[in-house]
């Protein structure tokens, strides 16, 4: 894929920017938004498989009660690192990869606003990823206190904990730089005539996401800096021996953590809001209300954090406040779901792979939203805290939400990015395997949680055996199906039927006015948007 892009563009682009180095140096030094977008996407795909492999070990261990393959200490490392890498290594970088590829193309800009910063924000990621993976090999093993890094457990571990703090710091810096780049690009570099309210919804969701990143990533940096100084420099932010309070960490962490949840889902909303109108051959229903819904979700995300901590002991007034604000989020989210359904209403729908993934997103994400509403109820949450119900809930919003929307976006834009059509038959097979295996894996977890099975344990009571066996079969199938995804992407990148400039007849955003693949430098002369 790499070389074909160079060759393709060299033909019809011989102006002064084309003295880019070839081979490895091209990728190391590239400031081109398309190159960097590609790097982000490959990086996140690698991390997706790495963290997915950890999940396979988890499911293999949980296939039957008792200890089979891994010791409890290793099991805890697996769950912790699976969460941490999937969030910071797979979902977030892939969405930034989409932003890099698509935001300039969709607003008619020649590149990102700060191309060198862009290069740097990508190349920090492999460093951080290597550090994280390396912790498996240090004395004491990787971090094992859960991806939320709660003290006092987090204070008691070995060197891996300090390495992870450094890695998360680097990831945070990378995210912040990416967010700055995206905000400046969107606000300053739109093509003439493209007012804010004419921007494609994907661009809107990323603008709001970037503001969330700028506001909360520094707060995460604070929380882990305090962990670092508590561990190494004798401070007592969270250490009760010196008058600190471990619960305070949870407050600071979730003040970052809840907006983080929406950082991972809002761009996914944007992708789905782009794909549904294309294959329903109708404009998006309620564009303005969609924009306001995204903005209100972003605002509400700042005032709901303590619903993650109902069991830490909170006055009734606090519980009620966080319960009501959490339930309030259902309103803008409901607006979005209804708008998606209304977009489909009386559309001329065709079911290509991106559309299948997007439709599954709408249905399965809504299920995840509903289980979120159940968890928002204080009396229920106190029963379900740290059970498999929570695991089921956040996999419905993160896998069938974010990850499946990302896959939808990959299938949708691959023809544009590579110039080749992907294998539609295999794509559909991948979709059906993923959707079915996903539900086999995670739907039984609702029942497990309601029956009281706690999360983050390598062994369990006998009555949970059947549902766990089902979930493990589904999980291994889900993991294996993703190899098909890798095969389809590689196959499409290496060749295939030419896609043409406009492979989807219903698509009307600016990137489809360019050739497929787009020239290395696109929109050097900005298009005029009417």
């Amino acid at each position, binding site marked *: 894929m790499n070389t074909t892009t160079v060759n393709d563009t060299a033909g019809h682009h011989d102006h002064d*920017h084309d003295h880019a180095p070839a081979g490895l140096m091209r990728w190391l030094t590239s*400031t*081109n938004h398309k190159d960097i977008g590609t790097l982000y996407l490959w990086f996140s795909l690698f991390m997706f498989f790495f963290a997915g492999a950890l999940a396979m070990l988890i499911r293999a261990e949980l296939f039957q009660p008792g200890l089979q393959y891994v010791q409890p200490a290793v099991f805890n490392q697996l769950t912790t690192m699976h969460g941490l890498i999937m969030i910071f290594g797979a979902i977030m970088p892939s969405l930034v990869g989409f932003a890099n590829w698509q935001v300039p193309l969709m607003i008619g800009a*020649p*590149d990102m*606003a*700060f*191309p*060198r910063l862009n290069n740097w924000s990508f190349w920090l990621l492999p460093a951080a990823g290597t550090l994280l993976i390396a912790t498996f090999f240090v004395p004491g093993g990787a971090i094992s206190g859960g991806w939320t890094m709660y003290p006092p457990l987090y204070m*008691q571990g070995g060197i891996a904990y300090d390495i992870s703090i450094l890695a998360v710091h680097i990831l945070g810096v990378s995210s*912040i730089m990416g967010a*700055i780049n995206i*905000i*400046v690009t969107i*606000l*300053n*570099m739109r*093509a*003439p005539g493209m007012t804010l309210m004419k921007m494609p919804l994907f661009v809107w969701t990323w603008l709001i996401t970037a503001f969330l990143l*700028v*506001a*909360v*990533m*520094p*707060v*995460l*940096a*604070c*929380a882990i800096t*305090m962990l670092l100084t508590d561990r190494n420099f*004798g401070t*007592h*932010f969270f250490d*009760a*021996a*010196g*008058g600190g*309070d471990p*619960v*305070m960490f949870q*407050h*600071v962490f979730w*003040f970052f953590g809840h907006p983080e949840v929406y950082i991972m889902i809002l761009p996914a909303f944007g992708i789905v809001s782009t794909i549904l109108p294309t294959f329903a051959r109708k404009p998006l229903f309620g564009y303005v209300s969609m924009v306001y819904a995204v903005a209100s979700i972003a605002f509400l995300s700042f005032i709901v954090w303590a619903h993650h901590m109902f069991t830490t*002991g*909170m*006055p009734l007034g606090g519980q009620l406040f966080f319960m009501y604000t959490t339930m309030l989020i259902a309103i803008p989210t409901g607006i979005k779901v209804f708008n998606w359904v209304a977009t489909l209403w009386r559309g001329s729908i065709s079911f290509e792979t991106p559309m299948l993934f997007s439709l599954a997103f709408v249905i399965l994400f809504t299920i995840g939203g509903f289980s979120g509403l159940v968890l928002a109820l204080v009396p229920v949450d106190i029963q379900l805290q740290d059970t498999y119900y929570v695991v089921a809930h956040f996999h419905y919003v993160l896998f069938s939400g974010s990850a499946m929307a990302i896959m939808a976006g990959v299938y949708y834009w691959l023809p544009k990015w590579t110039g080749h059509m992907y294998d539609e038959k295999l794509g559909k097979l991948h979709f059906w395997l993923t959707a079915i295996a996903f539900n086999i894996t995670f739907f039984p977890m609702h029942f497990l949680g309601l029956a009281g099975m706690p999360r983050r344990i390598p062994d369990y009571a006998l009555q949970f055996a059947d549902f766990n066996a089902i979930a493990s079969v589904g999980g291994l199938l889900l993991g294996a199906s993703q190899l098909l995804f890798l095969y389809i992407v590689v196959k499409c990148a290496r060749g295939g039927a030419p896609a043409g400039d406009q492979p989807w007849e219903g698509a009307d955003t600016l990137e489809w006015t360019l050739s497929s693949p787009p020239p290395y*430098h696109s929109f*050097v*002369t*900005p298009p005029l948007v009417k």
Partner: protein
Amino acid sequence: MSVSVNTSMPVRSHRQLLIKLLAVIALAFAFGFALVPLYDVFCQVTGLNGKTGAKPGTLGLAGISKPVTAPPSSIDRSRTVTVEFMGTVMPGLPWEMTPLTSSLDLHPGELQQAMFRVRNLSDKTIVGQAIPSVSPGLAAQHFEKLDCFCFAQQTLAPGETKDMPLTFIVKPELDKDIRTITLAYAFFIVTDTNPAAKNLASR
């Protein structure tokens, strides 16, 4: 730089926006640290985090002001509150701690005493400090310790066993909804290299 701003495009300043965004990031970072004193003040006012000795409504830091031991105004014999006691030893301290009084039923306002047995399992003289925590957190402000082994550091000789008393009053102002209070102690090791812990006097 590949960004050549086309003349037909309105030129907006990247630098200006960048500076504003950097200011937002700096503010957000500062806000994260400001959450620490804010949280302390919030807990001081509400008594949320179960730290005893704090006077709700006053901003004196816990551990600095001495407890005001007003005589109990009255004993509320109309209700009974159960107080449960727990003792834990934090990692790194080779001690053992058992509450000799596991729970007490009392009327708010009554003067009560509970005993804890602490044993040094090692062959060294070790200094430890107990840190109390009250659940539910809102009960902490009405849990008054008149005398407690946690007011000072405790030294145990090798193999020594000590019974440590706690004298307390649950004030009658305690919420009617609270029927059970749990008082948990965690013993921490006091090391010479840790000046913060050395100056510690916890209530």
